[in-house]
């Protein structure tokens, strides 16, 4: 016998035995389903909005601990002094107005066989289909000494949370002594938002150029190359002179240990780098809810069916956003938003009668701000082929290279398009 412990009643059940337990007074329609979404970020919020618009008979519940959402994209612009925290904080009221049942609680445990999720409060939610968009977990102590306490000294600012991490980083930047050293530790792939660290370097430099022009930025990288590298390095040389030094793994750029007490970064070969402030972006994996549910593989990320985004390890759980792995698509907000819609059509195909999207085509658009009125981008298109999702040949690529003197208009336009992208995609999540 199924216990029905949902905190509130949402829609009817498909199964007849359970339907007898539902309260007839609030039934919406026959044969509607219950879509449960965990995570209210780029994947989850997009899924919720899309589902309400396109599947009005399906009840949609969104579980998200934060009462408002601080985006990671445009967080770097706070460091550059071009945005305030309130500009990148979004309310769930728009989704509520569309009929999404938004529950501010933390999903604690998934019972895949029983189709139910237990929340931190102890409440239990039953579902027919689950969209899991939990984002990343930070691998504490993967860099020795970098744990949650250390992140109060060396902020990661790699998830939005309540905005405190990005605010702390901004405050440290404002308090940086004249000519001080800002250290960044950047992880190896795969990680959330591949160009993000380099936009961050740019925005920190943008601030320092005005406020503290003799300061230095040391960017220690566990990789040998990065997204839009040529464009970024060109921008850094054009805009910031020799303020930025990027150190790849082959130059001993992999940070193995941090000592927050003495403000030290220690490299693979034991070099101790003294910094006045540090931003440590640690290695990552799928958020704990996905790993605890046994959905992740040895990589720590969740392998999924490339057509439906259903987890390989469990049926009726579709994992979208940064938590999944196995496609060449980047861990970007853009891809989370697009794949959320595919996942919803796949999850609801059977109960809605509307087919899943069998021949999906995606594109990723990834803008970065490298300076004032200086936008750069990379795009790629992807489609399903025999071997899963693959990048489409002869398409995509980065912004045109060239000196600022001839490219100024393109850079300015791309900065404006980036702003429009931000407004559009956040509307497509929350409005």
């Amino acid at each position, binding site marked *: 016998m199924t216990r029905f412990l949902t905190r509130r009643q949402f829609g009817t059940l498909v199964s007849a035995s359970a339907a007898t337990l539902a309260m007839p007074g609030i039934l919406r329609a026959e044969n509607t389903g219950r879509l449960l979404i965990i995570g209210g970020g780029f994947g989850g919020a997009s899924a919720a909005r899309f589902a309400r618009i396109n599947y009005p008979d399906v009840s949609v519940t969104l579980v998200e601990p934060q009462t408002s959402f601080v985006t990671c994209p445009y967080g770097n612009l706070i460091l550059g002094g071009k945005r305030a925290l309130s500009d990148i904080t979004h309310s769930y009221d728009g989704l509520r107005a569309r009929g999404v049942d938004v529950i501010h609680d933390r999903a604690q445990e998934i019972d895949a066989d029983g189709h139910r999720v237990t929340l931190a409060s102890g409440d239990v939610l039953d579902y027919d289909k689950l969209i899991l968009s939990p984002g990343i977990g930070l691998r504490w102590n993967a860099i020795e000494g970098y744990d949650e306490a250390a992140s109060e000294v060396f902020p990661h600012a790699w998830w939005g949370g309540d905005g405190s991490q990005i605010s702390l980083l901004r405050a440290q930047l404002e308090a940086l002594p004249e000519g001080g050293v800002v250290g960044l530790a950047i992880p190896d792939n795969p990680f959330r938002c591949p160009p993000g660290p380099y936009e961050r370097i740019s925005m920190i430099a943008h601030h320092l150029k005005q406020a503290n022009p003799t300061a230095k930025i040391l960017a220690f990288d566990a990789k040998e190359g990065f997204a839009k590298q040529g464009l970024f390095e060109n921008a850094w040389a054009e805009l910031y002179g020799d303020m930025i030094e990027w150190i790849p793994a*082959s*130059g*001993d750029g992999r940070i193995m240990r941090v000592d927050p007490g003495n403000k030290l970064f220690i490299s*693979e*070969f*034991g*070099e101790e780098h003294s910094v006045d402030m540090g931003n440590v972006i640690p290695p990552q994996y799928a958020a704990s809810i996905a790993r605890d549910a046994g959905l992740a593989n040895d990589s720590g990320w969740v392998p999924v069916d490339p057509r439906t985004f259903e987890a390989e390890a469990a049926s009726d759980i579709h994992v979208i956003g940064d938590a999944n792995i196995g496609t060449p698509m980047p861990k970007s907000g853009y891809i989370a938003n697009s794949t959320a819609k595919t996942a919803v059509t796949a999850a609801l195909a059977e109960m809605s009668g509307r087919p899943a999207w069998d021949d999906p085509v995606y594109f990723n658009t990834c803008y970065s701000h490298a300076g004032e009125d200086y936008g750069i981008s990379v795009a790629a298109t992807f489609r399903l082929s025999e071997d899963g999702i693959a990048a489409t040949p002869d398409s995509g690529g980065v912004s045109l290279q060239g000196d600022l003197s001839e490219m100024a208009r393109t850079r300015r336009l791309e900065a404006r398009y980036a702003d429009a992208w931000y407004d559009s995609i956040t509307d497509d999540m929350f409005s």
Partner: protein
Amino acid sequence: MSTPRIRLPESASEGEEIEIRTLLTHPMITGVSSDDPRDMLTRFEARMNGETVFAYDFANGSAANPTFIFFVRAAAPGEFSFTWTHEDGQSVSAEESVRIS
């Protein structure tokens, strides 16, 4: 040439496996694809207690900032030396010791 970076354990017991990592910052310019004059290392040698235990001959496909990781059976007295030799005959060396118990 720049100062070599070496990573070794401080101590090991006799016969124990130790991991050795080495890095020398060097551009390794082949002179093939640019106008820059050729600037290449030719050989790297690692010695333990005076005996060569590991070596590498560089060719054009060797990357800049040559890095090696290899595994040695520790033997007393645990004196290690590492030498990078340039094509022009100059070399740079580093010495390290591991306490062997």
